[in-house]
């Protein structure tokens, strides 16, 4: 029995919300509030806090430790929107309670009016609790899944695969079975049966008070069906694909990281080795091979110098100089050159003629130019040359 006024308790909660919030957090983390934690909080906030928490029945002792009472825990859960996902088995119990009440309502509908009215009210309460739990669970699962997707906690890919698989297997799929209206054993299908029954009875039940109760129940169940359908859609269309994707993505990345640790020691997909298409010729390989093979023959090859048809006249300065010296004095040097060449060649070529004329520049010859402009005309294979008559004598040697 609490002596304090409700308003006083609410004022206490308002004034000391942070303390209650801390207690709630410890309870969520450890499942209870240890003596050490509790003593530390009391030491910080004073002994009066301990008296008030016990007086307003916020906490209760659990051996040497403490725990937050359920009503306050649920209030804090609701206020902070921090629901722990419930295992679907916990939610599934509502199927039994709803079915039991529904069965009794139908079976004893013509007996005591008061108990019938109570049963309808209880049924309504059970349905409300059921929907509330489903909504909270879906909300929490969605939040957890989004957190896993954003991966703020830097969870490893392998851990993500485990988490996603765990939620799919133990939470999402069972919850979806509970909500699946097509499944005859689902809670939703039972709620639908109750709804149909309430719809009939709100119109044809004899007692007006009960008719009103059925009317209220029916209105509530219509809303319930809409809510459950919405939750089911969230599960099937958003939560399940998102978790499946997280699982697949994480699985692939786990595989890739495993592969990249030592890519040269693992067998990769066995693709057939393709042959490259050559743009020039398909049998290029064979042609190149043939080309190179001809060089791999090791037989000795002997090359002989052939008789070259080679007619290159080389001017022998010594020979012609000797001839000129023997002929000295020469009255007409250019004619002498011409005659000299005629001894060997029938036709005199210009370059041969000029080569022989080069003797003129030898320093040991004395050159005398004619006093009159006497010239001689000579014809080579390509030219007709007009040249002065130059007299050559042996140079005087000074002793």
């Amino acid at each position, binding site marked *: 029995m609490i002596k304090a006024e409700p308003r006083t308790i609410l004022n206490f909660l308002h004034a000391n919300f942070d303390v209650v919030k801390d207690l709630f957090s410890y309870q969520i983390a450890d499942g209870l509030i240890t003596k050490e934690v509790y003593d530390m909080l009391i030491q910080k906030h004073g002994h009066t806090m301990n008296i008030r928490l016990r007086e307003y029945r916020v906490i209760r002792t659990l051996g040497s430790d403490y725990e937050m009472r359920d009503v306050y825990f649920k209030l804090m859960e609701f206020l902070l929107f921090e629901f722990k996902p419930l295992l679907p088995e916990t939610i599934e119990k509502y199927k039994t309670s709803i079915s039991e009440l529904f069965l009794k309502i139908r079976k004893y509908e013509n007996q005591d009016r008061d108990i019938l009215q109570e049963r309808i009210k209880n049924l309504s309460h059970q349905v409300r609790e059921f929907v509330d739990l489903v909504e909270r669970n879906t909300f929490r699962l969605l939040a957890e899944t989004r957190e896993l997707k954003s991966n703020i906690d830097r969870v490893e890919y392998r851990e993500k695969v485990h988490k996603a698989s765990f939620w799919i297997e133990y939470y999402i799929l069972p919850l979806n079975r509970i909500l699946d209206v097509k499944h005859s054993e689902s809670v939703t299908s039972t709620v639908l049966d109750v709804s149909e029954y309430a719809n009939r009875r709100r119109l044809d039940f004899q007692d007006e008070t009960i008719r009103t109760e059925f009317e209220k129940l029916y209105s509530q169940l219509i809303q319930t069906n809409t809510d459950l359908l919405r939750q089911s859609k969230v599960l099937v269309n958003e939560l399940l694909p998102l978790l499946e*994707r997280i699982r697949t*993505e994480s699985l692939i990345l786990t*595989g890739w990281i495993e*592969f990249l640790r030592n890519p040269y020691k693992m067998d*990769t*997909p*066995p693709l*057939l080795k*393709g042959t490259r298409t050559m743009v020039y010729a398909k049998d290029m390989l064979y042609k190149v091979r043939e080309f190179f093979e001809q060089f791999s023959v090791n037989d000795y090859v002997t090359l002989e110098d052939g008789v070259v048809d080679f007619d290159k006249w080389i001017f022998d300065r010594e020979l012609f100089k000797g001839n000129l010296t023997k002929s000295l004095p020469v009255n007409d040097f250019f004619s002498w050159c011409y005659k000299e060449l005629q001894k060997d060649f029938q036709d005199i070529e210009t370059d041969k003629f000029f080569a022989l004329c080069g003797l003129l520049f030898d320093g040991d010859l004395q050159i005398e130019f004619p006093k009159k402009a006497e010239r001689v005309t000579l014809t080579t294979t390509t030219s007709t040359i007009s040249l002065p008559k130059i007299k050559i004598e042996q140079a005087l040697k000074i002793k």
Partner: protein
Amino acid sequence: MVYPSNHRQIVEELMGGKFILSNESHFNALKENEAFYTEFFKISFDLDLNLKTEYAFLLSKDTQENFSRDVSIFIAILCYELDRDGRNFMEALDFNEFTFEEVDRYFDNSSFIDLIESNKSLREPDARRTLINGMQRRNIVSKNFDDRFAFTQAHKVFVDFAKELALKRMAVETE
């Protein structure tokens, strides 16, 4: 004996190490004659045909093939970097186009730089382009423009390979 339509094209492409994709017209001829081609490749060349709903290719006996390894490393690093960049890599491989510039950025800033540097097909941007061109010849990627490419359904061979590897490793750890 009457051969299926597109017989020559099917044999030439598969023997060239190319994937035949479900959106190609000769894929249907291959699928309709799956039993024939499975036997044909087995008896003629001792090769196994791998025909999935989205692609088909011939399995090699040589598991040490460098091309497959280089492509696996390329896709592995790309997936890892896309995920690190906050992108949905599965969707990106399925539907997105990648520019060479984008790929270069991911590879140049990758934490797997040692591995990239040690692989001659991935080390340089030009080498990566050559690898991507090789992937195009095999139908693993398609190129609509010179500077960009998109993965075809054939990339799933490599993604499935990663999945199997992860499952195997996780199974070993569970034991």
